[in-house]
């Protein structure tokens, strides 16, 4: 198996995740897209680990996983707060930074 096939898969997933982050209106969907990106990173890490015969890839993938979980927790908490205050979770409605 080529290394590149895993890497390219990871690249594709990452780009799709980017697309989702930029385009999706709902905050939760944006968070999902971010999960997509993190999954792509995981694939890359593990592929590299396997190709170089080292456990570091796995270990780091584990760490990324953990952090992703923590991040989703916090993220959803924030989304809840926003929903409570603004009655909406649409990112388009969060334009208080606009002058």
């Amino acid at each position, binding site marked *: 198996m080529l290394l590149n096939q895993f890497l390219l898969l990871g690249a594709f997933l990452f780009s799709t995740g980017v697309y989702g*982050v930029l385009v999706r209106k709902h905050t939760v969907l*944006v968070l999902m897209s971010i999960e997509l990106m993190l999954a792509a990173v995981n694939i890359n890490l593990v592929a590299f680990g396997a190709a170089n015969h080292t456990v570091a890839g796995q270990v780091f993938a584990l760490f990324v996983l953990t952090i992703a979980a923590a991040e989703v927790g916090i993220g959803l908490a924030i989304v809840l707060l926003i929903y409570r205050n603004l009655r909406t979770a649409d*990112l388009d409605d969060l*334009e208080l930074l*606009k002058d």
Partner: protein
Amino acid sequence: MWFLDNAWLVPLIPALSFAVILLFGKRLPRKGSEVGIAAVGASFVLSVGAAIQWINHLRNADGTSALGALGRAVGRLSAEGPAVEPITRATTWFESGTFKLSAGIQIDGLAVMMMFVVTLISLLVHIYSSEYMRGDVRYTHYYAALSLFTASMLLLVVADNTLLMLIGWELVGLCSFMLIGHWWEEKPNSDAALKAFLTTRTGDIGLLTGVVMTFFIVQRYTGHGSFNIVALNDAASSGKVSHTLIMWCALALLLGIMGKSGQFPLHTWLPDAMAGPTPVSALIHAATMVVAGVYLGARLYPVFWNGLSIGTPGHGAWNAMAIIGGITVLVGATLAFVQDDIKKVLAYSTISQLGYMTMALGVGAWTAAVFHLFTHAFFKADLFLGAGSVSHSGSHHSFDMKKDMGGLRKVMPQTFWTFVIGSLALAGIFPLAGFWSKDEILVNAGRHGYTAFVVVGLLGALLTAAYMTRCIYLTFFGEYRGGHAHADDGAHGHVVDAHESADAHGHGGPHESNWVLTMPLWVLTALAVVTGLLNYPAWHRFETWFQPRVHFVEAPAVPFNPILAIVSVAIALTGIGVAWAFYSGRLRALHDLSVRNAVARVGKMILVNKYYLDWLYTDVIVGGIKGPIAAGAYWVNQHIIDNVLNFTGRGARAVGRFTYDYIDQKGVDGVINGIATVTGEAGGETQKIQTGRLQFYALLLVLAVGLFAAALWIFT
């Protein structure tokens, strides 16, 4: 020799008194007159001392002087007696490289004589003025000006170089201006002062040119130029300097003499100068200032002698100096006949006598000219002060003989007798002073080959006697005509009110003057009688004492001619007799001749209009220059200058408007506004990035990252 060495004190003391009177005079008890009198008195004493010492000096030299024998051998002597150098003292005034100006005194017989005359007459005038000008509104300034005048005249007399003489000359001109215009509130007085100043200024053109030329004459002779008079006289006599230069110098100086000493045709200012107070007329315009010109001629005589070739009658028989002098004699004498104002008669008489002096210098009679200067000072001052006395006490301050005088001899005997004796001296009657001096002039003229001028002199003597008799008759004889109110002549009206209120004696009618006024008259009369004898042919004291023995000319002495003397006295007496007969009522055939006879009428009109000289000067020459030039200047100003200015102004305005409209409003403001607009637009456009939307920012972020990555990829 103290008085001679320190003769510089003589001009200095009146100069100091001028300053003192000007600063403190008003606060002094007698308003400054005491300072003036004291100062001039001191100068007089010093002058007398100097004269005595000079005469002693000469006597010592005449004794056993080896220098005298040497002088005789050199042949530069003109009077008997050995050579005696003038006493000189000088200090450096200004030095720059090789050029050096010195200021100093040169005291010889001529200077000593002039000092004596000036200080004596100034002193008498000071004393006279204390009563005459009492109560005048500018009494103190009057005395200050008199002091300054005395100092300036003395400076002129003692100067050892022509530059210093020039300074004195100009200062006396200034004082004359100030004093003639003493009552300047009346326009005729200030006009007269201006006329005097400007006419003498015209003559001064020549004087200045001449003084500059003297510098170069000395330079040609000694190698480096100077204004020193001794050097100048030596240079002129040496024969080593170009004759043309000396001649032009003499002619230029002659122009100066004409202006200051009232020679024809620059004499017109002197009669108008009678607008000043009478003591001023006596001092300045009779005895001292007007003779400054004659003094200049006497002092620089070698220049004139050599320049105008006076010594060689064949060539110089018609030299300019003698001719001008001769014309002046006749012009002055004829005009004196038609004057109604007593002071003007005396003014024209002065002009005539100055003509005698100039004529004498012109015919080579140095001693005669100077001697006449000496005697004339005394009797003319006597006559002027007498006229002042008459007007002060006899004719209610008027000088008009026909309107306000007459028959005054009964009420003013002292004035009358002093006036008569003075007139006889003027007319040249034996044995008074005028006889000796005038006769000497005629004798010298005849001897040196200038016979025509003898005739002129005799004619002048006739006329002099005649017009003075007319003057005496109108003033002192006949009926008193001054019964009516004050006749204030416009020409010399003064502040009568102040004078009236200050008069101690009431003005009832005409009466004799105060002793303060008559004392100077007697002093001068005495001198007029006695001084003539100073040059009595047997002893020639005047010549011995005062004629220079060195740095002078070879003019042989002329012996006394008794026949000529008798002829001149006879002519004078004839003049007196004819005039007396005419004015006292006889000689009816000649009365009112000008009314009946056309020729006589024309003649009288010419005389009354003063030979139309004033008309020529004022209306023709000055007016002709003034009119077209003034009109031309006005035209240039209105049309040319104003147009240029307006055009420039309009042009500047147009440029300004253009600059404002285009460059400022459109150009500069356009650029500024453009920058602002661009910035605003750019900001506006850039503002759109701030959508406030998170995902938009994220898009930009990712895009940037992608671009960086691409850049890295491309460039590595």
